[in-house]
């Protein structure tokens, strides 16, 4: 037995991911635990890092559980000649998935949704005639992709030194049966009855984007909003810390 165990340890075999459809919950709502063992109102641990791509003006890497995202920001650089004159800057967003990031689903709308989430927070008038490009790459899709991309993009913009009113944080909540689950993973998203995605500026306490699908009652919306606001402000603090660390690290170097 011991020899066998030793043999098993030396050969590497990837652990097959369990892909089962979660049970359909009916009366057992309360007994159910989430696939990664979190509480309903508990977010995944977040790892944030700035300066992931050296060639970009600013970049950030974010890892929320299995969701891994890189965002790089280029610019502001002069707008293409073909575009007409504008006294405010332009923002160009693109969200792509790596071929191995997820199975099948395409997310064409994410680019425009990222654009909408960011346009209100960037001080566009601070860079007239120029364009800022924000490219997001989802390395691995593990649920709540868009919120992670948005938060990561705001970190990358801050890293690039672009003027913003505030950092932007985004969190989503899934509603399954009667329970609300914050920061859902792919399996939960697949069988959700409704989703609630919120983007906000935590220090200004303002909501910049809000998307709700599925049927919701008012108390549920209130609860989800409270959950999201709370999570957003906490995420904002983590992001701020991350930026402070990066700043102090660069100060030490000089």
């Amino acid at each position, binding site marked *: 037995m011991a020899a066998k165990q030793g043999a098993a340890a030396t050969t590497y075999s990837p652990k097959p991911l369990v892909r089962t459809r979660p049970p359909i919950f009916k009366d057992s709502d309360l007994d159910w635990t989430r696939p990664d063992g979190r509480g309903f109102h508990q977010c995944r641990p977040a790892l944030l890092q700035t300066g992931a791509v050296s060639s970009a003006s600013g970049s950030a890497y974010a890892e929320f559980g299995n969701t891994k995202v890189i965002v790089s920001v280029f610019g502001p650089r002069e707008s293409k000649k073909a575009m007409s004159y504008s006294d405010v800057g332009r923002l160009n967003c693109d969200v792509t998935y790596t071929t191995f990031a997820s199975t099948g689903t395409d997310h064409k709308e994410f680019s425009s949704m990222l654009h909408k989430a960011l346009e209100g927070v960037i001080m566009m008038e601070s860079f007239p005639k120029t364009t800022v490009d924000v490219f997001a790459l989802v390395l691995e899709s593990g649920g709540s992709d868009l919120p992670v991309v948005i938060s990561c993009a705001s970190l990358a913009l801050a890293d690039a030194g672009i003027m913003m009113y505030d950092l932007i944080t985004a969190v989503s909540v899934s509603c399954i049966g009667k329970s609300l689950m914050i920061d859902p993973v792919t399996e939960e998203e697949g*069988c959700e009855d409704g989703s609630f995605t919120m983007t906000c500026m935590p220090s200004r*306490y303002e909501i910049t984007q809000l*998307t709700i699908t599925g049927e919701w009652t008012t108390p549920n919306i209130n609860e989800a909003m409270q959950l999201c606001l709370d999570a957003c402000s906490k995420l904002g603090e983590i992001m701020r810390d991350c930026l402070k660390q990066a700043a102090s690290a660069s100060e030490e170097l000089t």
Partner: protein
Amino acid sequence: MVGLSISEQHFVKGGIAQDLRTDGRKRLTYRPIYVETGVIPQANGSARVRIGGTDVIASVKAEIGRPSSLQPDKGKVAVFIDCSPTAEPTFGGRGGEELSSELALALQRCLLGGKSGAGAGINLSLLVIKEGKVCWDLYIDGLVISSDGNLLDALGAAIKAALANTAIPKVNVSTEVADNEQPEIDISDEEYQQFDTSGVPVIVTLTKVGTHYIADATAEEESQMSSAVSISVNRSGHICGLTKRGGSGLDPSVILDMISVAKHVSETLMNKLDSEISAAEACEDES
């Protein structure tokens, strides 16, 4: 794009602040709504809705298809919107495409519910003819004929009316079929099924201009908006979807306030629309 001089902008905003908009409406009043059903004979159902100067057509086409392997017990619904340059020259080229996809996405959100299908305005399980094998695919097409603001509400209303007008032929399926074969189907020419549209929500867009928000904004008023929230509400008063447009942020309490106002407005809109739809249906039957 509507261009307004600074003094006109000021006039429009002032009117909204004084609760008397340029066409005499109060902040939460809709323009008159006209509904016409059965406007496209080739479609299974169609409707034309006019709200003031905004004019849209929605059509529903049903085709036999196969359910997706992920959801074998459900039919499929696809929403497409076309903002043609006939409505406005700026809709030509990419400008129209972007707006079209944005509207289609918002409508999908409002009509189709969550990923599990809960809270959908259209009951997708009713579209299944034989589980895993045959189902109806519904293609909902919206066309913007002329645009004077508030396109989303008008399209939502048109789709609701078109669905109410939709008749889908009855289908008989041969019962005994091996697992891996497609069953034979027989589409009836005479018997039709109607849709139950009581669950289809209406969309209310509240546009924030200055410190106030208004319902059913005209293009002139939309050019002055800071942000807009589109809320779809069904008959039982539940929210079935929400989208926000415009970059500027809103205080959470304002959004909650808007939701409750939208609920209130949706009741009148829903009743008005229902009576218009049944009047239009009666009118069509007569002719």
